[in-house]
């Protein structure tokens, strides 16, 4: 089903549409068949306008069995076309999905345009001449559904055929089977009356340029590769596989031709510790993980803070605590990123806000880490990481400069903890360089010289310096933008992966003439310098986030004198636009 979704969205992109996708799949590789929990879904939003979200409700729902109908019917808009494989609605499967009677026959779908397609039967019949085994035949069923969809949207098969030809190069029979079934689905749709209303989606108004489709995790990996190339520092990733962050590790492992060194460590701790070792030698050092993995890395982040080494830690957030909801999305690791370490241990926190801009924020995280000699935590989430989006291809030469403060050989002034007076960053002295031998470690450091020190006054000074170094990064990041007027009745605030939904919701209420503006944060620690100025222009502030209120509490700590309201959702799912407009309108009405 995930492959079918990808093929559909790639074809949509080639048809010149903007799009956003959201795969929603169970944690199990072979989840129990025909159960609601085991449903693997793929949500695609295509359109002629700029697509910010994967959409609240769908116009077309494809359900391959009763369980997927049960799990997803709530997302179908009134009057939506529902395509089902009627062959899969057998008594056992219906019961297993939790229906007492067959939903195709009890009239419960009367308000929808229900298309009962005998997908299994027709797939088998169309493949009979090939003499394939039953398992291979049934694997092609999704292509039948895809063929129906292509007819609905009047798209051609070119991209999908090209994909088959490449993917199954060594299996000509599989290529043939997939093409036959795809065409059979298309022909079926062409002949049945139920599908006469064909969806015509015209081309989106997108900025001219060269584009590709990209997932957030791949965009993150590529942002790092670009930062390594621009900075001239070799890339090193130390990582341990964890859902939903593993794709970054997989992607970087492919790019040895760009010199990327990828170390699949024995655990999360070895992932970050190997990166710290690589950082000391002068690499752009990275470690990638998700929530529970970040917990395991906490102590080592402290070592990177104390040794003031550049390091980027990516946390593709998922539902927590503990193992939580590994394949679902959430923004509940903000506290952990900000505060989850022993001692006073400041690190930079940045959050990407779309699948495509994961590239840019991975790049900026690397730039800040190296230029300011500090660990940076980059927060994305399962929704951004797995979701895909149109990505305007940048030119590496046009990305911002990255100039790490590398110490010159035999620099007579070199001291391990002597700082740049502007940034407070120390110099990066690489092993192998003449005249710079030095030792660093996790014990408190003497100011300037870096020797082990337990002096009380020195400890306070170093604590303040470490904090000040991070806070001064506010001088090097863009001001916080506001969408809408600088003053008004309500400022809607959000951060990270919720950008698309919140922006669409705000635009909807703005169209109704309400005095609502929008500020979406990507730089969390430190916050942009003008944050307080942005907040003070509004009577009310509504902070929307996919947790119980972590960013709003952080704002209360750091930006006082404002009255905050909050809208929270902790269901492992992204916001829908309609629930946000509801919350915004409710806040406007409140006294």
């Amino acid at each position, binding site marked *: 089903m995930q492959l079918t979704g990808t093929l559909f969205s*790639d074809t949509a992109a*080639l048809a*010149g549409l903007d799009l956003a996708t959201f795969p929603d799949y169970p944690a199990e590789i072979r989840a129990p068949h025909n159960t609601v929990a085991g449903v693997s879904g793929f949500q695609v939003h295509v359109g002629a306008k700029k697509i910010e979200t994967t959409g609240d409700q769908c116009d077309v729902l494809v359900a391959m069995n009763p369980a997927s109908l049960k799990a997803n019917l709530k997302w179908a808009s009134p009057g939506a076309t529902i395509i089902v494989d009627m062959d899969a609605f057998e008594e056992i499967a219906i019961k297993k999905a939790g229906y007492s009677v067959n939903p195709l026959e009890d009239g419960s779908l009367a308000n929808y345009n229900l298309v009962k397609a005998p997908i299994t039967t027709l797939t088998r019949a169309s493949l009979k001449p090939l003499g394939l085994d039953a398992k291979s035949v049934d694997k092609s069923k999704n292509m039948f559904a895809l063929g129906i969809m292509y007819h609905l949207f009047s798209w051609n098969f070119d*991209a999908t055929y090209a994909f088959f030809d490449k993917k199954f190069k060594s299996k000509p029979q599989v290529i043939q089977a997939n093409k036959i079934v795809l065409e059979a689905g298309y022909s079926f749709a062409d002949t049945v009356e139920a599908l006469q209303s064909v969806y015509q989606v015209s081309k989106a108004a*997108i*900025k*001219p*340029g*060269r*584009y*590709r*489709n990209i997932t957030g995790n791949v965009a993150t990996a*590529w942002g790092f*590769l*670009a930062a390594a*190339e621009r900075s001239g520092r070799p890339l*090193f990733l*130390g990582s341990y596989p964890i859902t939903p962050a593993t794709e970054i590790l997989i992607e970087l492992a492919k*790019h*040895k*031709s*760009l*010199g990327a*060194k990828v*170390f699949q*460590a*024995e*655990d999360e*701790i*070895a992932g970050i*510790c*190997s990166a*710290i*070792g*690589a950082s*000391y*030698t*002068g*690499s752009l*050092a990275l470690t990638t993980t998700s929530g529970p993995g970040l917990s395991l890395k906490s*102590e*080592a982040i*402290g*070592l990177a803070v104390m*040794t003031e080494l550049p390091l980027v830690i990516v946390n593709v957030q998922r539902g927590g605590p503990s193992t939580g909801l590994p394949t679902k999305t959430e923004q509940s690791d903000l506290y952990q990123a900000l505060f989850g370490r022993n001692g006073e241990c400041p690190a930079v926190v940045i959050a990407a806000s779309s699948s495509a801009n994961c590239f840019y924020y991975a790049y900026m995280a690397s730039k800040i880490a190296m230029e300011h000699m500090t660990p940076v935590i980059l927060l994305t989430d399962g929704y951004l990481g797995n979701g895909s989006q149109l990505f305007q*291809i940048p030119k*590496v030469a046009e990305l911002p400069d990255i100039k790490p403060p590398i110490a010159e050989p035999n620099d007579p002034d070199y001291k391990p903890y002597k700082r740049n007076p502007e940034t407070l960053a120390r110099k990066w002295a690489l*092993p*192998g360089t*003449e005249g*710079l*031998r*030095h*030792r*660093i*470690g*996790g*014990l408190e450091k003497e100011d300037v010289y870096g*020797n*082990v020190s337990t002096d009380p006054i020195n400890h306070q000074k170093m604590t303040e310096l470490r904090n000040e170094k991070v806070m001064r990064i506010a001088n090097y990041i863009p001001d916080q933008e506001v969408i809408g007027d600088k003053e008004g009745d309500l400022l809607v605030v959000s951060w990270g992966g919720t950008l698309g939904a919140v922006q669409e919701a705000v635009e909807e209420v703005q169209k109704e003439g309400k005095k609502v503006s929008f500020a979406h944060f990507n730089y969390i620690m430190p916050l942009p310098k003008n944050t307080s100025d942005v907040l003070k222009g509004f009577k009310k502030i509504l902070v929307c986030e996919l947790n119980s209120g972590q960013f709003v509490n952080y704002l209360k700590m750091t930006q006082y004198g404002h009255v905050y309201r909050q809208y929270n959702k902790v269901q492992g799912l992204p916001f829908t636009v309609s629930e946000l407009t509801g919350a915004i309108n409710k806040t406007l009405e409140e006294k």
Partner: protein
Amino acid sequence: MSTQPNMTIERSSVELNKEDFVSDQMVKWCPGCGAHAILSSVANVFPKLGYRKENIMMVSGIGCSSRFPYYVNTYGIHGIHGRAAAISSGVKIANPHLSVWMATGDGDSMAIGGNHFIHIIRRNIDINILLFNNQIYGLTKGQYSPTTPMGSVTKTSPQGTIEHPFNPGELVLGAQGTFFARVVDTNPRLMTEVMFEAAKHDGTSIIEILQNCVIFADKTHDAVTNKEVRDDRQIVLRNGHPMVFGKNRDKGIRLKGTRLEVVTIGENGITEDDLLVHDVYQQDPGIHLMLAKMAYPHFPIALGVIRSANYPTYDDLVEEQISYAKENGKIKNVDDLLNSGETWEIK
């Protein structure tokens, strides 16, 4: 087997000596601690390697042993508890032109860092590991460690420990170690010799140093290191030589069936020809494991290089894969990557 250390590491153009590696920091180990002798041996061996002094790096974890990097004037990281092997791995993979040395202890590497320890060995990353085994937690003041002999009374085992200790050699060979040596802190000459051999070995080299903690486990190795008895309770293994030991050089080790046996030369018609001849380069670790496991009172403990087998190193294989990919890969820069696959122009 080369007689020179790693040739990919840049060599010093001038002759170095011990003073080149002395740091300006005060050494804070207890007077009489075995670590002083280890430090002195390291300072002796580093100039002999012939490397540029800037190309040597020390990494450590936490514990008494792990203060080591502060006392040697090289590049160095004092890491966090148990993680020295992981940090070292990153250092060596990122820059294979460094000679990387790791100082660690029986707590740091056998307990909290056990996972990293077995995996660095399994991968055979070219790092020289000095494992200070004093069979006690010193820095936290006297709790038992994973190598403390069973039954020992310590602060956390007032009735004696009820845990079976690790034999580090067994663990190293079980993790497919390619180099294992054992020395005692009271024999600096052997220590220096073995450290040089470890540096020459391509791959992870483990040197277990039986070290005395004068405060919390004084004389813990006394049964085998005491001057009066040590010649009869130690055997120094030398490649190509028959396994002879004893004050009078009249005892030896031979293979009887599938087991080792201590024999006396001259008794029951036994001559030197009946003894096992040490082969450090043997790929099969069977005999090496038996040698590493020899323990008092039934056997002398084995010292010197027990195993030095030749296998590819992880760091070399990484470089090979990268140079192959660079030569054969289509993607030469990030612009190529961004424009690879399906892209389209929107006008």
